């Protein structure tokens, strides 16, 4: 969705989904800082407290000229960033807009009960299929955890995916403002790792795009 389009149709709605501890809150804060730099109003809804430990978490981020509440209406999410694919599908089922973009990490975090054989496994291929059936526009899957590990460290998967989101051009804010936002929000100890992953994420997406264009 282009920037002009989302200004006329209400806020741009982004969901960042994952498992507690993957840094979805941090990623949403980065996006919010970037949006503010570009003069947009922004609202984020997230869940805090004991509910997040190891459990499903997601942040809803809304960017626009005027935004009321932070909650995205069902079926109106323009971009879903899945730090974990099962969690991405969980939110997509409810929120993904027809033609909305999806960027997912391919690394599945297998729930405990699945490990114990108490509930069936949900394979990545099935997740992809279901996302397509939901009418996802762009569906981009990257092995972000492994790629981030080689870039700024395994803890930077969230930032790597922000870089990729920018490189794939599925997001209305500029790479520069995201990079500035990462600088503004990262503790100095982790800054170098985050910047490396952000940049590699973008480069990776650009390379994939080029490859697909040449096909």
């Amino acid at each position: 969705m282009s920037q002009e389009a989302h200004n006329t149709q209400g806020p741009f709605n982004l969901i960042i989904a994952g498992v507690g501890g993957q840094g979805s809150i941090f990623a949403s804060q980065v996006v919010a800082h970037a949006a503010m730099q570009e003069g947009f109003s922004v609202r984020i809804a997230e869940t805090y407290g004991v509910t997040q430990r190891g459990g499903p978490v997601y942040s809803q981020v809304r960017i626009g000229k005027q935004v009321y509440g932070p909650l995205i209406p069902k079926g109106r999410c323009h971009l879903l960033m899945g730090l974990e694919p099962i969690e991405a599908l969980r939110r997509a089922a409810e929120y993904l807009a027809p033609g909305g973009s999806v960027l997912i990490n391919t690394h599945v975090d297998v729930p405990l009960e699945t490990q114990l054989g108490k509930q069936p496994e949900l394979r990545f291929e099935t997740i992809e299929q279901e996302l397509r059936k939901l009418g996802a526009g762009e569906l981009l899957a990257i092995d972000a955890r492994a790629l981030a590990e080689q870039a700024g460290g395994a803890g930077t998967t969230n930032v790597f995916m922000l870089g990729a989101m920018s490189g794939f051009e599925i997001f209305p804010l500029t790479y520069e403002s995201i990079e500035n936002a990462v600088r503004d929000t990262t503790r100095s100890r982790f800054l170098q790792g985050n910047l490396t992953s952000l940049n590699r994420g973008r480069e990776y997406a650009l390379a994939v795009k080029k490859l697909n264009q040449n096909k």
Partner: protein
Amino acid sequence: MNREVLFRDTPGMGVLALGNEAIARGAIEAGVQFVTGYPGTPSTEVMETLIEAAPELGFVAYWSVNEKVAFDSATGASFSNARSMAIMKHVGLNVAADSLQQVKLIDIAGGFVVVSVDDPSGVSSNNEQDNRWYAKFAGLPAIEPADLNEAREMAKRAFEISEELLMPVILRSVTRLGHMTGDLELGKMEPKGQEPYFDSSRQWTPFPCLEPERRLREKLRHAGEVLERYQFDEYQGKGSEKIGVVGAGFAFNYVQEAVDILGLREEVALLKISTVNPLPSRIIHRLLSHVNRVLVVEDVTPFLEEAIKAEAQEIGRPIQIHGRKSGALPEVGETILDDVVLALADIVRRESPDRGVPSDAFPSKERAERSAAIQKLIPRRQIGFCAGCSHRATYYALTKALKNVGIEDPIVVGDIGCYTLGFYPPFSILQTMTSMGASMGTSNALAQLNPSRKVIAFIGDSTFYHAGMPGLLQIAHQQRPVLIIAMDNSVTGSTGQQPHPGTWQLADERTVIPIEDIARAFQIPHVRVVRSLQIKRLIKELEEALLLDVPAMVVSRQACALEPGERWRERTVVAKVDAAKCDGCLVCVEEYGCPAFVAAEDGEGKIAVDPVLCNGCASCRVVCPREAIYLERLEPRK
């Protein structure tokens, strides 16, 4: 997040802030002199922000042991003519309510603001509770903000209102606002008030009671005029609309968006009600004077719906009032936009059957069915303890100790904190849990009435100091043979690692009062302290304590894995699984369930440890029957 921008006098500046931070900023702008509270999601960040600001801005801010102590302390500050604030989550006000119901009757001195953050849907609570009723019950003025700028402004103005009316003012917020991040415009910081001074020439008590009760009612009548001056409530309409939509505080956001989605801007009149008590009758009558139907959107209970219905009856013209009570909106659970869109569309259909609504206003039936089908495919993801959490080790040790001594039908009582996860797999061991500190009194009676069974009570450190001590005194006084396991992780863990009187990390700055010293002073005959992650020793201690016929306490102590010292501690070891020894029995997962245990990549059903998630606590070695878990030393970081 960097909160320092909230501490500077830069009016007009735009910053990114949480709703709770906006409330804190409002208090700062009002020149608050004294703040205290007890941590509780979703209110915690109000206090955290103020504690951070206090040294720089020169006011008093600290965590109290419970909400009643917080409220009483803020009362003392107000009596000393200081602007004071007491901050708590919805259920916290229950603890402070005894004092609230007295202080309301006294002419206070310094502005006194009580912040109550309610938790619709009980996202981080056992109940939904609508604290607007407290305002009505006590007869105190209350206001609720609709957005970040209002949160800041209302928190600031609440002090003035309190000083004008000489009564505490309740500022009600909700989780969705408290934990919403957005752009906030800073206001001007007012100069700090006078040096606190307690006037001994007055009596600060509501005695005898009838005169203060009369005066309270007088003040509340006057409060309506005072609050109206602030124009917290807002009417948007032409005076000819047949449908009105009312939003209470934060819920007004859903009203605005629902109206936009349905394209009804020009056809419905809107009313934002931020004055909770006393009800702003004048502006409500303005809406009721021309509408046939009203939809009331509000969180938790039909507080406003009932009040508007009563007002409508005075109009003498039939007006349909829709909301949570009428069934137009769900009776329980947080207000969500989608429900408001549906309810409003339905009202439009009833009022003007010919007026269509946009086809894309809600998901199609086909889409709804697909969503439901997908939800069935998606596995549950059980929440569990963090890697390195001491509670896991403690529950594991008790499970083993019970088995070793042959106790098969214990009664296991829980309390409030992260350890309530003991209700869930892999432990599923807790059987009761009600309110803060209740494990003590409840286990006391369970032990008396079930003499043939062992009663075990779990209580966290912060919960023990908060409301567990009187109950322990009761157990000690009656020498009831309860085994109390104090889960002492040195901080109030579930709300974000706030300190309390047992936080030994602060021993240089404050007097630390360990739980075991209190238990011994209370004459609990058997008190032991064990490091939680030393599981073998913990099992032995628990075995011994389980067989006693007197009150016993085992303090299982280990700093919360998220406590700053622990969280940023450099790991020296990481757990590994020897694939040659692991036979895929899954005992580690079934009995210990650390999130760092993952399926090994060989696909043969063996287990591995995720090196990113492992926090190097080293406790899991004892759980593997094949001794396949070992520790690998990590190179020190350069």
